[in-house]
């Protein structure tokens, strides 16, 4: 039985390990902001070029979500699109398998 579910167990362990690692780092690095690495990269560029970050204007005009709430909503929408696709296909395959019994 353990053999059969080893990938499931490994996945759970990996996710738990990841959570534990996060709890550990956030407890020892009290000043960590957990900002996006792209924000850090941009700060780094600003430092290297000696220009202020605000000086980097988009080359092509771009709409930005007015608030963090709206942004997280749109990210949830993106994940939902993916989730619907995955769920729909797995359900479709499962239904197909039921219709044509094991060869």
């Amino acid at each position, binding site marked *: 039985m353990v*053999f059969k579910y080893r*990938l499931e167990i490994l996945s759970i362990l*990996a996710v738990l390990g990841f959570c534990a690692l996060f709890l550990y780092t956030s407890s020892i690095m009290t000043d960590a902001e*957990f900002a996006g690495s*792209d924000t850090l990269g941009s700060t780094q560029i600003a430092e290297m070029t000696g220009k202020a970050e605000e000086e980097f204007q988009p*080359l*092509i005009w771009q709409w930005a979500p007015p608030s963090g709430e709206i942004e997280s909503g749109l990210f949830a929408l993106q994940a939902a699109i993916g989730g619907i*696709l995955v769920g729909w296909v797995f359900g479709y395959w499962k239904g197909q398998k039921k219709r044509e019994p094991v060869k």
Partner: protein
Amino acid sequence: MHIMEGFLPLYWAVIWWIIALPSLIFGIYQLKKILEADREALPLLGVTGGFIFILSSLKLPSVTGSCSHPTGTGLSAICFGPWITSVICAIVLLFQSLFLAHGGLSVLGANIVSMGIVGPLAGYIVYRALRDTRLNMYLVVFLACALADLFTYFTTSLELALAYPAEVGGIASSFVLFMGIFAVTQVPLAIVEGVVLALVFKYIVQLKPDILLRLKVFPEEKIRAARSEA
């Protein structure tokens, strides 16, 4: 994460677009051919593409005290190759640059090259090298997915280093700097992503092995052996 809009000088943005376009066009051509030959490939494309949508929207905290997100491109690279994957990535990245202000239209080319081309290509090369060896099938999927994720961020670092060489040490030393920001953050994420996508691949093997056989993703004996042990 991606390069932000405005942070690449115009000529670098154009260069990456020029590199990205041929592979996008070739990807669309390949996609058309595969779907014409086998309509049953469409659901598989939906699953692999769906995971790119899900995983690239999850921003996860990491050991460096910053956040980044996995890419999810490895699975699609294994099933369909890097060129079709670049088309799916282009759709996701376009969504993010239009609605989320993550990335942008001028740097879209650079982001397609890192997430859609070099990352999946690295994963694909690893997978092709190990496919016919006796190595466990899921281990191959794990390695390909984790490396596709990591190489995406190596490429992002390289793209930024090329555009912004350090005054002392030039491209190499700023590459190391950007690697510290992007790639180190990514290591734990890449490992988790690899394990999870290997699990997803197991479910595909169990539910729909015939499509994997028709696309010749893995040799028949390997898929048969994996099914009989579950």
